């Protein structure tokens, strides 16, 4: 049934025959995958298999590193229109707003908590005055951070705990009204409790956004993933769905073989 629904719906993101080279060294080769709204797709694989490069290829962040060459296509569907982001579908800055990214280590701006959110809101959406404050509160409530920071909004964001910083980063990403979220091991540097909070948050968010995540933890992958792509040496060697994820032992065996 689910498969049928998915076939009728168009994917929000489809990566086709994507290859990325750094200084002529292939990092990703011929990768294809699709992302549907309401689903979390998790990429797993040994380190150096190209997981982060795959995420950064979607929002074209790879281009900031020297000697990067990308071929293939990344098609995005927004408000019913779709196009290849490598062929001028939208401006680079708009692409990076629409495809938000969260990194392994929480990357807050070294400004106040408030400014971390208001800066992108002012820059892109031209929000000002009381609307700005309302919008900020709304987003902070969304990620469950409002109660913790409401009395210290002008404090430096770097004084927050790792888990709080990561939720602030997610909030900043959501402030820009994205369509797709890219999460690069978002809980890798966090303690168990903070990681659990973020996982819960992601399960809530998947109803509204397409989520492509990289995870280092197979247990976490089983908890949050709707689909899993196994990446090895720059190629997708296996795709798994709910069926495979249900039985932990079977999942472990598949992963062991794939790695």
């Amino acid at each position, binding site marked *: 049934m689910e498969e049928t629904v998915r076939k009728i719906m168009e994917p929000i993101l489809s990566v086709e025959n994507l290859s990325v080279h750094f200084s002529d060294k292939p990092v990703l080769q011929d990768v294809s995958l699709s992302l549907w709204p309401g689903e979390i797709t998790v990429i797993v694989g040994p380190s150096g298999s190209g997981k982060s490069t795959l995420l950064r290829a979607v929002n074209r962040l790879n281009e900031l590193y020297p000697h990067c060459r990308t071929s293939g296509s990344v098609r995005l569907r927004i408000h019913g229109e779709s196009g290849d982001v490598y062929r001028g579908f939208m401006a680079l800055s708009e692409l990076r707003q629409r495809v938000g990214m969260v990194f392994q280590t929480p990357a807050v701006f070294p400004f106040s908590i408030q400014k971390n959110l208001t800066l*992108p809101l002012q820059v892109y959406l031209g929000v000002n005055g009381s609307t700005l404050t309302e919008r900020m509160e709304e987003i902070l409530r969304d990620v469950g951070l409002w109660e913790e920071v409401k009395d210290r909004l002008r404090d430096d964001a770097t004084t927050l705990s790792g888990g709080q910083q990561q939720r602030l980063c997610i909030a900043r990403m959501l402030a820009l009204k994205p369509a797709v979220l890219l999460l690069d091991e978002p809980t890798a540097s966090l303690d168990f409790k903070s990681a659990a909070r973020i996982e819960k948050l992601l399960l809530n968010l998947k109803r509204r956004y397409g989520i492509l995540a990289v995870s280092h933890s197979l247990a976490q992958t089983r908890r949050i993933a709707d689909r899993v792509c196994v990446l090895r040496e720059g190629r997708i060697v296996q795709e798994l769905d709910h069926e495979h994820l249900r039985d932990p032992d079977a999942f472990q065996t598949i992963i062991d073989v794939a790695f």
Partner: protein
Amino acid sequence: MKRVSDRIVTGAAWLSGGGLMLAAAVVIGFLILRGYKNLDLALLFGDTPWQAAIMGERPVFGGIWPAFMGTFYLVFLSSAMAIPIGIASGIYLAEYASRRLRSLLGFFVDLLAGTPSIVMGLFGFTAILFLRKTLLPEAQTCLFLAAACIALLVLPYVIRITETSIEAIPEPLRLLGYSVGFTRWRNLRSVLLPLASRGMLSGAILAVGRASEDTAVILLTGVVAHAGIPGSMFDKFEALPFRIYYLAAEYRNLGELDQGFATSLVLLCISGTLFLIAVCLQKSAEMRWKRR
């Protein structure tokens, strides 16, 4: 064993820091000791009533007011030329220039930084000679020429410090703005410049300090012992460091020498005040950048 070496290094560090403070204290203490007696309105304005001198109603003879104003104009003019150009060049080198161009331009910046100030003075002097023979027979050494040569002298410091303070921002932070969709200019304005502002301030302070103390350049480009307050940028001018040099070299009695020490104190106060203003400006800018 480790403990002993640790202690030695710690001790040496304390000693160096302490030595630095001691040296500064001795110099300033000596200046105060020799100069404080002469620190009065007469030092600044001579026999002229101070209100009339400040308003420019009557010229000042015997006081250092014209030199005070000359140095102020010189520092202001040369900073106004060097700081914006230096910061802009530093930003270009750190953010926009290709690797090859960066090392090429960097070489020229270092070359400029290594130019002795007397050479820069000679350059200004020769430039005027050239202008007199060609385009501007009326041209003479003046405040504007001195300020331009001083600006050239301090420019490399401002460029280098701006460049290194932007490059010192860790890579994840440099790229963070792009990941939320900032354009290069927006990333520079909203993230990189605020983070580099403290370093850029040091560059500006160094420029101001250097501009206020240099004697060799102005000696050849327009300073004179008695010129009064310059009426325009194209007049000759007086300056505090030259006044100090002049008093120290040609004093007729001990009273004049002590006047030189008092003048040094005044120069120190000007630099100190300018530093303080720069620090306050940077602090308030940082608050504005970070909080709101």
